[in-house]
């Protein structure tokens, strides 16, 4: 089938071109992704990603369970950063039902979301280094991610898929001593994890040579393909939902929106996107310091106070967005007013749109750079395929 969008025709392959298949089983494609490359030696002429290997019919399942029952399904979409998924869904349903959670629950949600952001960026930056060939920072960052997962396990019993953000509240209150443990983690993070990562990986000359200057995405292209989060900020526009449309009281926290600066090459390269993620970890730590201080002084209310006995919204629909670690996560929920199951839940996942820009950026790269490009877009196939 001829397809001008991908520059692909089966019958006009030159004799010196090769069709190479990366995946679906491949060490570096961040999940089950299959990329068909049409290469001329090492240079890629056209790339065509195939997704759908991890499609688990989330949207169909959501129509057959009730509103709170969808939350474990949402966790499993972006399994690396589960808190963000359930947060987005809970915010959407709360908007639909007109529920406003109290400041205590809001602060807990912020703490969990920011801890999850640091953990998710640990994986993003670590695996990116590993794809480039630096094995050691991955293990150091994972060691530090374990500390965050210990905090999560202490709070809600799960390390990866939490079912934490409920409609109207959270599932478990933070245990006693959580503030102290959180501060301990932040101390170690500021003292060792973050400086080590910058030193060992981000400032490494070879790493910079491998990533700066490839995969350059202009801001217009990024907006047209609906890139969000660190992918968009790497190209320049300082768009962050926590700043532009604050939710959960983010307007009361002081933090900077990190933007790619193009220090080592054109702005919007793979290095810039990775740079945004690395520095965002520090900003999340800043937010965490403030949130933890606030939590300590706040009076502890019941976290299940606003959780309705039966989630049965009136007829209506809403599209709610939140800033997940990988970009803007959007939930379009249609409620038909009868029954306790959602009528339609559509998820706009940030990695889905990030993957759609792949075939544009991949032209003219080397095969080694394809790996760097996928890593810099930070795709998790669970979210793309749902």
């Amino acid at each position, binding site marked *: *089938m001829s397809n001008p969008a991908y520059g692909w025709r089966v019958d006009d392959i030159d004799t010196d071109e090769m069709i190479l298949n990366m995946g679906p089983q491949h060490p570096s494609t961040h999940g089950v992704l299959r990329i068909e490359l049409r290469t001329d030696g090492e240079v890629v002429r056209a790339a065509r990603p195939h997704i759908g290997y991890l499609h688990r019919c989330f949207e169909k399942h959501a129509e057959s369970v009730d509103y709170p029952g969808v939350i474990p399904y949402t966790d499993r979409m972006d399994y690396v950063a589960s808190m963000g998924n359930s947060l987005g869904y809970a915010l959407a349903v709360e908007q639909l039902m007109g529920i406003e959670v109290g400041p205590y629950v809001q602060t807990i949600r912020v703490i969990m979301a920011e801890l999850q952001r640091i953990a998710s960026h640990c994986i993003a930056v670590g695996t990116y280094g590993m794809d480039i060939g630096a094995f050691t920072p991955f293990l150091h960052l994972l060691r530090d991610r374990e500390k965050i997962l210990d905090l999560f396990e202490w709070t809600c019993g799960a390390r990866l898929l939490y079912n934490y953000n409920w409609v109207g509240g959270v599932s478990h209150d933070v245990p006693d001593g959580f503030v102290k443990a959180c501060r301990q983690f932040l101390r170690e993070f500021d003292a060792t994890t973050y400086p080590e990562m910058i030193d060992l990986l981000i400032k490494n000359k070879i790493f910079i040579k491998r990533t700066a200057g490839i995969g350059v995405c202009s801001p217009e292209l990024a907006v047209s393909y*609906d890139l969000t989060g660190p992918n968009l900020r790497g190209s320049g526009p300082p768009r962050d939902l926590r700043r532009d449309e604050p939710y959960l009281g983010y307007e009361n926290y002081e933090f900077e929106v990190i933007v790619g600066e193009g220090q080592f090459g054109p702005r919007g390269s793979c290095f810039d996107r990775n740079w945004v993620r690395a520095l965002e970890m520090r900003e999340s730590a800043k937010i965490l310091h403030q949130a933890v201080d606030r939590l300590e002084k706040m009076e502890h209310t019941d976290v299940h106070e606003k959780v309705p006995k039966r989630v049965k919204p009136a007829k209506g629909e809403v599209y709610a967005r939140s800033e997940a670690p990988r970009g803007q996560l959007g939930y379009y929920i249609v409620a038909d007013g009868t029954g306790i199951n959602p*009528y339609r839940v559509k998820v706009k996942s940030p990695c889905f749109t990030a993957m759609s820009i792949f075939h544009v950026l991949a032209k003219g790269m080397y095969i080694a750079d394809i790996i760097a490009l996928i890593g810099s877009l930070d795709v998790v196939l669970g979210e793309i395929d749902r």
Partner: protein
Amino acid sequence: MDAPAIHAKLADRFREKIVAFQAETLQPWAVIAPDAIAEVATFAKSDPALAFDNLLCLSAVDYPKEDPPRMEVVYHLFSYEHRHKFVLKVHLPREGAHVPTVEGTWAVANWHEREAYDLFGMVFDGHSDMRRILLPDDWIGHPLRKDWVDPDFYNGMHVKPTQQMAERAMAGEKIGVGPFDITPPNRHVDE
């Protein structure tokens, strides 16, 4: 600009193509005639007062029980410049629906429309690559429709070995016992 003003601007330009406008909801929407959606999209993006440069989400919803039964394609628009949002909807018949593509306006619609076609069955005219994206290429049917029934077999494999199969096995039918017909389809014939 708020929603009524945006609707006024669109209605001003497209008159009868803007079929309806619902303002009393959380996120107001305007219903567009299917054949005009591409022009409305181009106008929404290029007009300096509207400047909807971002398509947040393109979803399809199936309403079989409405009167008349319809499928909707919902476009959530956002403008980075003016920070306003709007929702466009297109009502389509449930069978044989065709909508012009908005891929030329927002490049991200490419994959969103492929997903809508894959799961619902509406065809986007003018799309550069109208084929399935999430489901296997040889899947038959569009699963997210409300009247979807799982097939019994896919390429010789049982799709849903559940209560039905248990009952049939109890009735004596040989289930889960070979030989199976698992010849994969020939994908190279018609890409």
